């Protein structure tokens, strides 16, 4: 019925979607809200790592007849840009991906701003819809572009740019820190903090501060990818069990129970032990394949709850197909606690990686925080232990704060 009060008060033009309500609630949890910016900052650091630290110059000019590299003599070049996609220099796909984002994210943001300049009169709801569509298209284009770049497998021979710096007449402009995370300097092993090396060097003489910056990439990637893997598995299995019930439910529940019989950490350790030289991809896969039980049980529970809700019964009564009921009516209502759990999961996965590295079965070649911690312990260097430990602590705290805020914001009982 029309409420007669609205005629007296000015009508509210816009109505909030469910997501907007949750976001409004979330904003009230100040600490959690600022943590979102913290994590965004970590992401930006991961993206701009090559700008901050890399032993390749942005700009290089070598005069004629100088230096060991004949092909570089008498040229002016921008080796930094080429090196970003050089699979000889960055041997990990993760680095290439973040380097790609370094260009792609700003381009997308500029594109979005320009688009919005032409469509100023959009309502909030229309804007958020357009934003969703833009994000979707941009991600798709990004994935295609990255795949093309990665598959081209561009590589160039190694050049020791640091040695060229000393040459007479050569002009090189380096990033802020002139080291790379793999840059071994045997002349400066296990040093303490100095102006040269802010956090000192490790046993191989690698700059710890640089490794710490690049470690952000590793940690975020491990967290997000591992959690994505197990969330996907958990969602599929949990939905099947919850919606169909009966035999399907029984089989999946038994699978979950069997998985849960093993202590996850020991399972991971065992699996990691089988792999000779584990890379971060192995670690992500292992965490992803062992961590899905929680999500599966969560989704199953949500499905069981929602299956008996009247709006699902109404959907059946309206004659909708099963697939439609699952994907349009049940799943969107079931994913909300999954988001919360996944946020905590990212923090957990980062911690598992650190644990594995500490126990010596981590990705030995990656500049992960866990690896830095371990090397610090081996050489009794407090700066390594404290710096990497602090990085892990901050990241996990931020993620847990977000998770808690999200949990409270989505829980109607805790509405402020």
């Amino acid at each position, binding site marked *: 019925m029309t409420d007669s009060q609205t005629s007296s008060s000015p009508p509210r033009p816009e109505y909030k979607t469910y997501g907007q309500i949750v976001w409004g609630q979330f904003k009230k949890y100040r600490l959690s809200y600022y943590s979102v910016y913290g994590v965004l900052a970590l992401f930006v650091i991961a993206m701009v790592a090559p700008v901050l630290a890399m032993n390749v110059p942005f700009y290089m000019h070598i005069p004629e007849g100088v230096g060991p590299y004949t092909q570089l003599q008498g040229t002016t070049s921008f080796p930094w840009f080429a090196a970003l996609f050089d699979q000889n220099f960055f041997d990990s796909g993760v680095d290439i991906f973040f380097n790609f984002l370094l260009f792609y994210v700003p381009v997308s943001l500029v594109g979005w701003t320009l688009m919005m300049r032409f469509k100023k009169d959009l309502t909030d709801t229309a804007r958020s819809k357009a934003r969703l569509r833009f994000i979707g298209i941009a991600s798709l284009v990004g994935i295609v572009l990255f795949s093309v770049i990665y598959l081209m497998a561009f590589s160039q021979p190694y050049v020791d740019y640091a040695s060229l710096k000393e040459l007479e007449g050569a002009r090189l402009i380096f990033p802020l820190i002139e080291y790379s995370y793999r840059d071994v300097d045997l002349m400066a092993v296990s040093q303490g903090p100095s102006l040269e090396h802010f956090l000192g060097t490790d046993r191989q003489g690698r700059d710890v501060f640089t490794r710490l910056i690049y470690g952000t990439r590793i940690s975020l990637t491990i967290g997000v990818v591992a959690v994505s893997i197990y969330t996907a598995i958990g969602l599929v299995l949990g939905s099947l069990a919850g919606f169909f019930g009966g035999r399907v439910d*029984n089989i999946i529940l038994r699978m979950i129970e069997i998985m849960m019989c093993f202590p996850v950490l020991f399972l991971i350790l065992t699996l990691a032990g089988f792999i000779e030289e584990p890379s971060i991809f192995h670690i992500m896969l292992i965490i992803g394949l062992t961590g899905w039980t929680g999500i599966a049980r969560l989704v199953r529970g949500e499905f069981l709850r929602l299956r008996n809700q009247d709006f699902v019964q109404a959907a059946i009564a309206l004659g909708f197909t099963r697939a439609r009921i699952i994907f349009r009516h049940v799943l969107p209502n079931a994913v909300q606690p999954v988001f919360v759990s996944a946020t905590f999961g990212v923090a957990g996965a980062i911690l598992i990686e650190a644990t594995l590295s500490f126990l010596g079965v981590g990705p030995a070649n990656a500049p992960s925080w866990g690896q830095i911690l371990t090397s610090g312990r081996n050489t009794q260097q407090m700066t390594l232990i404290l710096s990497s430990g602090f990085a892990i602590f901050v990241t996990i705290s931020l993620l847990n704060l977000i998770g808690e805020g999200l949990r409270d914001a989505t829980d109607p009982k805790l509405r402020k």
Partner: protein
Amino acid sequence: MSVAPTLLEVRNLKKHFPIKKGLFNRQVGSVKAVDGISFEVNANETVGLVGESGCGKTTAGRSLLRLLEPTDGEVLYKGQDILKMGPAEMRSLRRNLQIIFQDPFSSLNPRMTIESIIGEAITFHKVAQGPEVREMVEGLLERVGLQPSYITRYPHEFSGGQRQRVGIARALALNPDFIVCDEAVSALDVSVQAQVINLLMDLQQEFNLSYLFIAHDLSVVQHISDRIAVMYLGQIAEFAECDELYDNPLHPYTQALLSAIPQPNPRRRAQRIILKGDVPSPMNPPSGCRFHTRCPACFAPCKTVEPRTVEPTPGHKVRCHLYDPEFAPNDPDIWARLPRQPEAPVTVTGDEGDAPAKRDASSDAAPDGTDGVASTEAAETAEPAATSTVEEAGAERSDVSSDNASAESAEADSAAKSNA
């Protein structure tokens, strides 16, 4: 009303929920939520289904729409048995059979706008396409008394009464001819409840709808229904036209139920019939007549023999031994215990003779009427009294009504077990 063609006929509908236990999910019993109910709904008619919580009225409503898969029985919609239909056939038939729910908060998907909640079915069943859908949704909203501009809102913006109207619009979207109203107004405040009841009645006239109106509030049911079925523990105790049921309730349970409704009139603080004890668990319903543990007029066969449905006056069906010519007691004491004396003389349709003669004839089937009564006062749980007369009565009854035979033997079994 009897001239109208039968739209939906329910025959002996049963829904038993298995109780499973242990490692291998062994079935250890079943909750007989709905245990053999039969009724029919005519075109443009409202049939009320009343009963207390746990009597199976909601399960009945959902089973006949196959939202719950019934255990047994037939549901004939325009002559077709919908329980035998395949999934695809059923999906297209669902357009004609809709449901309105009790809880206005859980019945609308919180993630969808009003437009998609109502319009989804229209698009899915290809009733209309494109901008036409929006027009139809706006029209429906207007019809149920909401502003068409509400179309972009989400359910949480609305009050309970408004949500219920959205639920009604959704049910109407496919132009059905039968709607189950499952406690559709129970959760609403008095003033809003009146609005929704009026709306439902207007819509019935306009769209030629039939309702199965499920509720626990007898005054609401009385207001809206043409005929009323009273359910007790999974079975229909009494089924009659509205006026007949309220003026001349026959079943002791109906009588007690009617007298228990508080009347908004302080001068009429009625002498109520207060039923003793609680509703027994449907997991382990009492033997014989399911109401015998609380019935003030319980007599010998009630405890052991399951009553038949009889029709003392045309169109008035009651499932009680008192009106069954075979068992009706001669003893005036038993009738005196009845809270309210039936108005019309108890006659039985189609058969020979009149009521008193009947009672005489059946007196030997119920040899000692007073024996079972003593324990009714305290009886809170069913105590299957297995005496030799039980077996006799059971044996006699089994050939009389074939459809009760299986239930009978089960009863006898359980009685024998508890005896051993």
